[in-house]
């Protein structure tokens, strides 16, 4: 029996789709059977990031409205046998995916796959409600910007009202020099405000954009920092205890104790 994880953020453009693609790829790299579901109906791009756009024949709305079987809509990844994608529809709107439809699809997929990663649309409307309806747990993606943290907080509040276990946090697009100079919220501050557990931090890396554009998630290329970050997140999802990546080569990034005392002085 697999597990369904929804990747959500509230705000758009913080990297939900990239995170979904990379976590999925990383889990597949660890020999897990993974299915990615894009629920951003009308604005799909998980297929683009995965480089699978031109293989789409059927999509999730076709499945829900009974125009095809679920397995017909699934697209096998070109690199991994164990990775599949259920693409979003480009022509319908977000209300086309119902909560019941999602629950049915996910429970079917759970029998075959170890992990079902759901890419949630931005916003808190029907699309969001449907996307989280079937999930067992959630990963909230935020960037070190106030607006993004605020929306993340809103989303966590909504997730707490469901039966789901406590969501976990990914801080994306970290720019080390800006954090150090205090121009960006720092990690401790974000974690303190959102008060949920951190599952990963990803630095702002040109390689991510390059990889997304070439349809190859960055997690394939093991020599970039962001790739290692995504793989670490995948390992933490599997229950491994991986220390947080240090943002710089020096030690002492997460000396919380020091900061704790520093705040009082």
């Amino acid at each position, binding site marked *: 029996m697999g597990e369904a994880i929804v990747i959500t953020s509230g705000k758009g453009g913080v990297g939900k789709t990239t995170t979904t693609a990379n976590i999925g790829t990383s889990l597949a790299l660890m020999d897990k059977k993974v299915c990615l579901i894009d629920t951003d109906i009308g604005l799909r791009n998980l297929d683009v990031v995965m480089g699978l756009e031109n293989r789409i024949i059927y999509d999730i709305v076709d499945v829900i409205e009974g125009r095809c079987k679920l397995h017909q809509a699934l697209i096998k990844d070109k690199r991994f046998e164990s990775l599949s994608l259920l693409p979003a529809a480009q022509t319908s709107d977000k209300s086309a995916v119902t909560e019941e439809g999602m629950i049915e699809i996910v429970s079917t997929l759970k029998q075959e796959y170890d992990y079902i990663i759901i890419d949630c649309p931005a916003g808190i409307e029907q699309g969001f409600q449907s996307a989280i309806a079937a999930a067992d747990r959630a990963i909230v993606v935020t960037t070190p910007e106030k607006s993004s943290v*605020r*929306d993340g*907080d*809103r989303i*966590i*509040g909504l997730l*707490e009202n469901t039966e789901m276990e406590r969501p976990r946090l990914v801080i994306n697009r970290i720019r080390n020099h800006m954090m150090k100079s205090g121009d960006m919220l720092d990690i401790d501050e974000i974690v303190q*405000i*959102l008060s949920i557990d951190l599952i990963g931090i990803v630095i702002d890396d040109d390689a991510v954009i390059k990889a997304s554009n070439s349809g190859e998630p960055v997690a394939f290329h093991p020599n970039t920092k962001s790739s290692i970050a995504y793989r670490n997140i995948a390992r933490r999802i599997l229950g491994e205890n991986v220390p947080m990546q240090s943002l710089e080569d020096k030690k002492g990034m997460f000396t919380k104790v020091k900061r704790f005392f520093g705040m009082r002085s």
Partner: protein
Amino acid sequence: MVQIIQDDTQTITIKGTREGLTLVIEDTCSYDEAIFQLKKRMEEAEFKEDEPIVPVHVKVGNRYLTEEQKKEIESLIITKTNFKVESYESKVVSKEDALAWLDEADVKRVMKVVRSGQVLSVIGDLLLLGDVNPGATVKATGNIFVMGNLRGIAHAGSTGNQEAIIAASYMNPSQLRIAEYISRAPDYETDGVYMECGFIHKEEDKIMIDRLQALSHIRKDLRGFERRMKNG
């Protein structure tokens, strides 16, 4: 048929005091009788047009007055005169009122992080073990105590209690509201303060923030229940 003959002066007594007039309505006669006598007294009385407004304190002893009855008495008193009913004093309260006061005096303990977009609203005092995040609102008819970070909006005395205070372990709110007063954070970034409280400063006529320790001088009587018992 027995006719109750009562002396008018005993049913309604009007006394002049430094605070205005005290109007005592005997509690042994029926309500209708009291109204009848009151009407009579008011008609008999002569008042000059140019007199200043006189506050009237109505004492009804062991009589319970409903809101409608209070209104009726008030309408009788204020007709043709420049009287103003300042207060009602009764020795009895209804069970509902007493329970409502108790509810208002109660401290509601809540353990959670109030997040952006969420509104936590209670009757009485709020003791929040957790944070109020930016974009979140906590509201209480009484005082608000936050054991955690207050970064959002806190509204104490939301039904108009100006005596209410807001205390927090860490205070960096976007807005503090007490009764109808509102103060907001400055436009520049601030670090926030630890162990402080906000209250309405009567002389300055605005919300002020001070150390928690100052509370013992500012608000000696934090419990609303005693206040309600005294003042109704």
